[in-house]
């Protein structure tokens, strides 16, 4: 054990600085009675340790506080661990969480993931055109969905996908949380995003925007396939989608108070309604919607709809796979239609296929007239309730097909 005789040069709150008889300045721990100028003996045990110094310099604890050094270290470690855990939890709590998926089918077809504040977390193209366009679109994670969509639409317009004539855009949205069935949050999100768009910046022609709600199933399907949730919904949908906004020369006009009408397709318990319809095609849309009482069989979308593309309806591009429909009208098995069963196998860019009317006419159990029965293939359970369904719905839906398919051809 070595000792040094030292002179105390300075007394601090946590330690003292001494000058040893060897000419070195040393920090020593404080002991009672120590004062500047004292000539004292110190041992190695009295040297102030570096780690003690680091604590005192950070003024975590003072030696004269209630805590001993050991306790101070323990508390310091606990505080460090606690702060790390707290920061981690805060980070996790504040980090954006995917809230909903929004798809925009023009076509090109885009799909974005947004958080609860409608800020974009991810954007992907669902077809080649979209992927190509996205390479030109500058967007950052955290930007508002409106801003990103605005930029996408401008890029789409610049590349000629939005022309001077009628342009149909289908917006679909779905909450990621499968437990949330309420359509209201989806409506709010779509309305919020669409209402803030500056339409003048990307179109001088006519723009008809329709919105549709989707669900968790569609998200899963869109992930596993190269389709957007909007395309997926239209594949299985029978009812036409009502336009929400019509833009003429950059002036937007709301056609409905809310973007999305409640979709009874997603309510399996819904009673099948039969609404009076006339043979001349004056069926209401509500009637058409409730015919799909079995949403789990989305592939039953009637291929026969496609034959009546009279061009006065709203977008319904799902019938791209109508070329399989000749084989689908084979009775009541119900799952032969389109051959898709919710898995659309036709690319959106394909032109609509005219269905052979004569084939549909042979479906004697479902048609009483020479008109096409929409509900026939939709569900065997609803056959009888929709016998009188007029062609107008079909016309509307097929018009959608026509319109969207027309748009799919890149100018």
């Amino acid at each position: 054990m070595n000792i040094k005789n030292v002179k105390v040069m300075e007394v601090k709150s946590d330690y003292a600085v001494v000058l040893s008889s060897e000419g070195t300045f040393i920090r020593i721990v404080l002991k009672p009675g120590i004062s500047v100028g004292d000539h004292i003996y110190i041992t190695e045990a009295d040297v102030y340790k570096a780690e003690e110094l680091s604590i005192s310099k950070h003024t975590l604890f003072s030696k004269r506080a209630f805590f001993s050094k050991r306790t101070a270290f323990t508390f310091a470690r606990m505080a460090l661990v606690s702060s790390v855990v707290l920061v981690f939890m805060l980070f996790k709590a504040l980090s954006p969480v995917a809230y909903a998926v929004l798809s925009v089918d023009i076509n090109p077809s885009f799909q974005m993931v947004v958080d609860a504040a409608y800020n974009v977390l991810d954007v992907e193209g669902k077809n080649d055109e979209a992927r190509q366009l996205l390479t030109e679109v500058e967007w950052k994670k955290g930007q508002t969905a409106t801003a990103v969509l605005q930029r996408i639409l401008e890029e789409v317009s610049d590349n000629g996908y939005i022309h001077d004539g009628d342009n149909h855009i289908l917006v679909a949205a779905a909450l990621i949380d499968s437990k949330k069935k309420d359509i209201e949050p989806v409506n709010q999100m779509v309305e919020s995003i669409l209402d803030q768009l500056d339409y003048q910046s990307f179109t001088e022609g006519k723009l008809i925007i329709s919105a549709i709600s989707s669900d968790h199933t569609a998200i899963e399907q869109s992930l596993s396939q190269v389709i957007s949730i909007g395309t997926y919904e239209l594949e299985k949908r029978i009812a036409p989608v009502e336009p929400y906004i019509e833009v003429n020369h950059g002036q937007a006009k709301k056609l409905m108070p809310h973007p999305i009408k409640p979709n009874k397709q997603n309510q399996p318990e819904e009673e099948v309604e039969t609404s009076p319809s006339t043979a001349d095609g004056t069926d209401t849309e509500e009637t058409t919607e409730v015919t799909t009482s079995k949403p789990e069989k989305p592939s039953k979308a009637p291929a026969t709809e496609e034959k009546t593309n009279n061009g006065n309806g709203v977008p319904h591009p799902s019938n791209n796979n109508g070329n399989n429909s000749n084989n689908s009208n084979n009775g009541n098995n119900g799952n032969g239609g389109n051959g898709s069963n919710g898995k659309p196998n036709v690319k959106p860019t394909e032109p609509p296929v005219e269905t052979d009317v004569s084939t549909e006419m042979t479906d004697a159990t479902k048609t009483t007239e020479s008109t096409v029965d929409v509900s026939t293939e939709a569900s065997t359970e609803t056959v009888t309730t929709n016998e009188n369904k007029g062609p107008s719905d079909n016309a509307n839906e097929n018009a959608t097909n026509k319109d969207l398919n027309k748009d799919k051809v890149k100018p």
Partner: protein
Amino acid sequence: MDNITIQQAQTSREARELFIKAHFPFIIYTVSSVTGRYVVVENDESFSVALEAFNGAIDTYSEGVSKFETYATTVIKNKLIDFYRQQKKHYGHEPLEETIPAPERDDDLRIEIADLSSKLSKFGLSFDDLVEVSPTHQDTREKAITVGIKASKIEWIVKRMHEILKLPVVEVVKAGETTRRFVYSHKDYILTVILVFSEDLTRMQQFVLDSIKGDSHEHQKR
């Protein structure tokens, strides 16, 4: 000296003195542990009591009971407690801590230290900073002190140092006949030595001079 055994110390007077000197650090450590204070080099009554107790422990120690250091620690501790009890009785009911006689303080040295601290602060230095820059090796320390003393003798270097408020390295290199690298490496320590020896800080000067004389065992004076 370290090889002297307790048996030799018990039988020979010379061996006992050497044995006690060899155990100075042990005695100081024991006193400091018991009293909770540092042992003052001069006139520390606690140390005197402990030294006396240690000497007595040499006489009363019998081999086989325990190690001598353990035995001596107990003896010193008991003697110090007795000493404080007597002090307490003498000073009435004052607390034990107050009965421990405070060491006599060298006011001249305190004034010198305060003066040096004030001058160092003008150069942006403190005693705390000097802990980090003190040369570790004895040879280096002695060389730095020697260079500083030489430079402090040259008035214009000291004047220049106060003007620029830092060590004039080039001038000190010439005055100290050393390398620029050495001076630059220990510039703060050399600057402090120049301050000590250029001012009227006689007690500090003596303490520093003692250090380069290798007088690091002042406890032997006792």
